[in-house]
């Protein structure tokens, strides 16, 4: 036990005497959460919309009204000629143009087919996506209203198929469509992964590189304790980071913790354990700090960013990527955090994620201990 304490203290000396490490550990989470929370925001306000309405009937008026009432849109022009669209975009007067088909309401009622076209500027895909999503949501809501009030139930299915809408569950819990609701769980996953996996592997590999690991292995300190005491400081610091992120999320980004704080922290600790064990695994595979950094960076960070659902929705990916994404720990963590933090669901709903993360932690720890022992034989 005394061995363990002197060793952990030494580990803290290493961390706090290296300015770069301190910066990475304590400042990076703050910088990242602010970057992702604000700069990378996919939120768009005051979208300039132009509308072409040849029908001018009850249905189109309802939709137009809803759009202009929304705080996201500002109707800048009612155009009379669809050929004007291009010049509108070129002059930058509109970000999006909505075109109704002719005899919109009549078609809707009699044939069940009515068309709306949304044209956006694809040179800015993120904005275009966001804007289309807002508009689609409004149209969908109006459509529901129209259906309920006027259309007999028989024709209902036909109409919905005409306007292509992918309803997003997120919307339910994020009525203002604030992107920080999406990013905060993602950043939590990313930062914890980065700090635990990368920093742990680097700190262990550094001892190998410098030669002190040999001295430790010859000492009566058991390898398992060496490993645990190397991981403990990063576990503690990750917890500090978790607290920082949550405070920033709540007080700066305004993302509430709707669910149980206890379970949110609990599952975060399990995830930190997974990340630490990945760091241990990396450290048993490589002999230089550079290699450790590259592996944790390329093999673990990139997939975490791309496949965890943090930036791109996993559901829209080809099956092979969806399959691979199941092996990304952060994916499960992010899903769980969304459930526990944003949606405010109880822990029952996150049992699957909890189980997967727990299994991953156990598997990684077992493999890395085996690898570590193998190296010694």
């Amino acid at each position, binding site marked *: 036990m005394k061995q363990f304490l002197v060793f952990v203290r*030494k580990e803290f000396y290493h961390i706090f005497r290296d300015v770069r490490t301190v910066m990475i550990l304590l400042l990076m989470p703050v910088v990242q959460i602010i970057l992702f929370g604000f700069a990378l925001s996919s939120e768009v306000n005051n979208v300039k919309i132009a509308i072409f309405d040849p029908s001018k009937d009850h249905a189109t008026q309802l939709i137009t009204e809803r759009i202009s009432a929304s705080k996201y849109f500002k109707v800048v022009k009612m155009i009379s000629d669809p050929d004007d669209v291009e010049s509108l975009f070129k002059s930058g007067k509109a970000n999006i143009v909505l075109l109704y088909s002719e005899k919109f309401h009549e078609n809707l009622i009699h044939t069940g087919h009515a068309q709306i076209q949304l044209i956006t500027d694809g040179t800015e895909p993120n904005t275009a996506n966001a804007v289309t999503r807002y508009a689609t949501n409004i149209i969908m809501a109006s459509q529901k209203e129209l259906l309920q009030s006027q259309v007999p139930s028989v024709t209902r299915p036909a109409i919905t198929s005409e306007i292509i809408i992918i309803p997003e569950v997120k919307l339910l819990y994020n009525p203002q469509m604030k992107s920080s609701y999406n990013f905060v769980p993602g950043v939590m996953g990313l930062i914890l992964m980065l700090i635990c996996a990368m920093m742990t592997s680097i700190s262990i590999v550094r001892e190998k590189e410098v*030669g002190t690991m040999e*001295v430790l292995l010859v000492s009566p300190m058991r390898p398992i304790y060496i490993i645990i005491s190397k991981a403990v400081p990063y576990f503690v610091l990750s917890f500090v980071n978790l607290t920082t992120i949550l405070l920033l999320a709540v007080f700066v980004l305004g993302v509430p913790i709707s669910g149980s704080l206890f379970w949110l922290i609990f599952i975060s600790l399990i995830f930190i354990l997974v990340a630490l064990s990945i760091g241990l695994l990396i450290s048993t595979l490589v002999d230089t700090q550079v290699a450790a950094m590259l592996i944790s960076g390329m093999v673990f960070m990139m997939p975490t960013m791309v496949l965890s659902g943090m930036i791109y929705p996993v559901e829209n990916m080809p099956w092979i990527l969806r399959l691979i994404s199941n092996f990304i720990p952060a994916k499960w963590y992010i899903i769980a955090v969304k459930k526990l933090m944003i949606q405010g669901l109880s822990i029952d709903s996150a049992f699957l994620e909890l189980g997967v993360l727990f299994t991953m932690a156990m598997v990684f720890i077992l493999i890395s201990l085996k690898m570590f022992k193998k190296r010694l034989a």
Partner: protein
Amino acid sequence: MMNEVEQDRQQVIKVEHLTKRFGHFTAVDNISFEVYKGEIFGFLGANGAGKTTAMKMLCGLSKPTSGKGSVAGYNIEKESESVKANIGYMSQKFSLYEDLKVWENFRLFGGIYGVNDKEIGPRTDEMLAQLGFEKEKNSLVSSLPLGWKQKLAFSVAIFHEPKIVFLDEPTGGVDPVTRRQFWELIYKASDRGITVFVTTHYMDEAEYCNRVSIMVDGRIDALDSPRNLKSIYNAANMNEVFIHLAGGSNRKAD
């Protein structure tokens, strides 16, 4: 005559038919030898001759394929934990923490080897006084010159009063004056009864040892005092002895 005298002395390392194979490669080939208490035992051999592998087995880091050995009275295979608690080790790579202060290194390794908390402080001061490093107690190790670091590393390796200290090329890259001072430290430790097991590439250092073994291709081809070795091989110095023996190696150096 010589044998009778040796048997009276305490054996601290005893190795019998020790062999280590990696696949088809036999790194250490059936070596047997004894080292006695307080002795300075030189473990020589060209690069790739199997010195490091043999030393790892003695330190409990690696299991022998066959044969047996005991270090400080403990079986190297079955009681490696006890072996580790009774030895000190200093590697060819620099083995202190550069970003810790001098006293923090003593504190750390003292703690790891279970030295009593109350003793660590006074013993650190004592050792630093011996080295004349009192002023550097609070310096970061990284700020010290290489020769100083090496001497410190040796002091840390014998801080817990081990029965045996293993030195793996301890004087690599150090100037002759510092090497000389380093060997004075080794003699002092040996006088206190600490057995010194040392590998080196410097043949003048081999002359300082009480006995020397020379490994060639995993075998120990010669083991005796430097004086006897020189007369057996009719050589003027250890360098000639070494070249005579190691020159017959079939292995490429790594």
